[in-house]
């Protein structure tokens, strides 16, 4: 079963399952992987449509340019690998062969962020948002739960142009109802409050909801925004809540340089300059850890850290 609210599948599993459904509906969809199909979950598509699945072996740069070639003849390629490889090893291919000619390729990168665990720094993509965000023509999607993953994967399959999707490794709890609707470029307000706005993305959104509840019990009322599309940023929502609450905190499983926090800061600094607290990985490489929670604690991006930072931020600003 795809959706199980009590025991959610990971977003990458939802991606693999959704891909199979889309493959049924649209014969132009083809899938490429670089020997990580078991992990990225594209193996599900391979089992169903072997003739439309291309394993390119451990050669990510080639895979990304091959996807570009497939798009030029009218195919809709979904290319998957870990986000650390998609955003760094195959970066120039993504930039020059896909983003520049605006080819209809979807790069769905999994195992993003510090959360992945044991593999450590070599495999922890904490720069990908910053890197991809600086490339013109490409959309960045960062779903937060199984429903947003499914709906946004569907949405990008209908959009004609390059997209980078950032998925984590571990399951995220359900935030949305199964009938919730999603649009590329639109954030979601999960919770409304008046003292503070917490803007987050991906696996951190649920932690921000929890932090918001704790803050509530301490007499602090906060809005929580899920920035499901990081580029183009939903500027209208950011501006509206910057004006309403005057205090903005951003939270992401990504470097504090150039990610969601960077995007929000760049926008507000020129439209409605207020102080912003950016919570993320503090310009350092990752490390191995037994489970995501240990890593979130180690890098101070867990629920309690968000609460503490929010309190300090409000106290001194």
């Amino acid at each position: 079963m795809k959706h199980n609210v009590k025991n959610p599948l990971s977003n990458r599993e939802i991606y693999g399952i959704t891909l199979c459904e889309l493959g049924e509906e649209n014969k132009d969809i083809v899938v490429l992987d670089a020997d990580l199909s078991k992990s990225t979950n594209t193996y599900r598509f391979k089992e169903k449509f072997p003739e439309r699945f291309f394993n390119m072996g451990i050669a990510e740069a080639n895979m990304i340019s091959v996807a570009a070639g497939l798009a030029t003849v009218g195919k809709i390629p979904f290319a998957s690998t870990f986000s650390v490889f998609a955003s760094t090893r195959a970066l120039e291919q993504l930039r020059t062969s896909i983003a520049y000619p605006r080819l209809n390729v979807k790069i769905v990168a999994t195992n993003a962020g510090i959360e992945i665990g044991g593999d450590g720094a070599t495999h922890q993509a904490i720069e990908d948002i910053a890197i991809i965000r600086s490339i013109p023509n490409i959309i960045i999607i960062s779903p937060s739960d199984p429903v947003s993953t499914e709906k946004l994967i569907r949405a990008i399959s209908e959009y004609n142009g390059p997209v980078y999707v950032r998925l984590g490794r571990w399951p995220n709890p359900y935030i949305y109802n199964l009938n919730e609707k999603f649009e590329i470029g639109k954030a979601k307000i999960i919770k409304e409050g008046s003292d503070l706005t917490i803007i987050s993305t991906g696996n951190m959104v649920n932690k921000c909801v929890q932090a918001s509840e704790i803050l509530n019990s301490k007499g602090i009322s906060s809005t929580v925004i899920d920035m499901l599309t990081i580029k183009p940023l939903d500027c209208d929502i950011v501006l509206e809540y910057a004006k309403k609450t005057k205090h903005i905190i951003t939270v992401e499983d990504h470097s504090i340089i150039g990610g969601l926090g960077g995007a929000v800061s760049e926008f507000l600094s020129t439209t409605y300059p207020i102080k912003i607290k950016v919570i993320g990985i503090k310009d350092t490489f990752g490390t191995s850890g037994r489970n995501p929670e240990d890593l979130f604690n180690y890098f101070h991006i867990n629920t309690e850290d968000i609460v503490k930072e929010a309190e300090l931020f409000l106290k001194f600003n």
Partner: protein
Amino acid sequence: MKISNKKISMLTHIASQIRKDIIEMIWNAGSGHPGGSLSIADIIAALYFDILNIDSTNPTKKNRDRLVLSKGHACPAVYSALSLKGFFERDKLKTLRNIGSILQGHPDMNKTPGIDMTTGSLGQGLSAAVGMALGLRLENIDSYVFCIIGCGEMQEGQIWEAAMAAAHYKLDKLIAIVDYNRLQIDGRMDEVMEVEPVVMKWLSFGWYVIEINGHDFNQIIAAINFLKLINKKPKVLIANTIKGKSVSFMENVAMWHGTPLSFDQKERAIEEISKYETQCKKPAI
């Protein structure tokens, strides 16, 4: 099959026009890559005026042959051929490398009619050609995908990733052409970074290989027609060429990889190209 003298004479004339265009365009632009554009002029003439199934009135028709110029810096040669085929007006050639021009410094599929893939960063074009061949096969379209690779470009690791993938997927509609002029910006390839044995490398990657003189139309056309008959393998034509071919002061001089010309040099080059055409057309004794 022997190619008719009439055809050879026609191709010789076209290659000569392409060479003159290359020189004029790069002189006009004040920058560009004459050496490697001149070295592929004969191959480009043969492809566009004999081999490729393309239609200037319908540049994006689905069942056309594709050409990926992976050594994108040699695009003046392709721009000239496209203009001669009527894909756009001849006077556009003067706008090469200017702001707003349809003729960018490196090929742009969205700006230039007839360009099948955006290239310029070496190493990526062969992979894109692999993607095209895979996609066309899925569509049951019987078109060929040609990809012109620079010899220095073979130093890029991605070329060999793509070579491996093409053989793995048995892409027999993919024909790569290596413009083997043995020079790169920094000098002779055997001094900068040797790639020999080139034939053995492609063979060992599972390709069918033919080595020819890349300035001989008989050899170019016969080899490509023969390669089309080979099944279940990607094919590569190792075309031995001379960088700067037909302009004496440019031939085999690495400096002319990316140096613009003075007015006098331009005039002399055009003169020598005309002389070269006359020589080529002299009947063999």
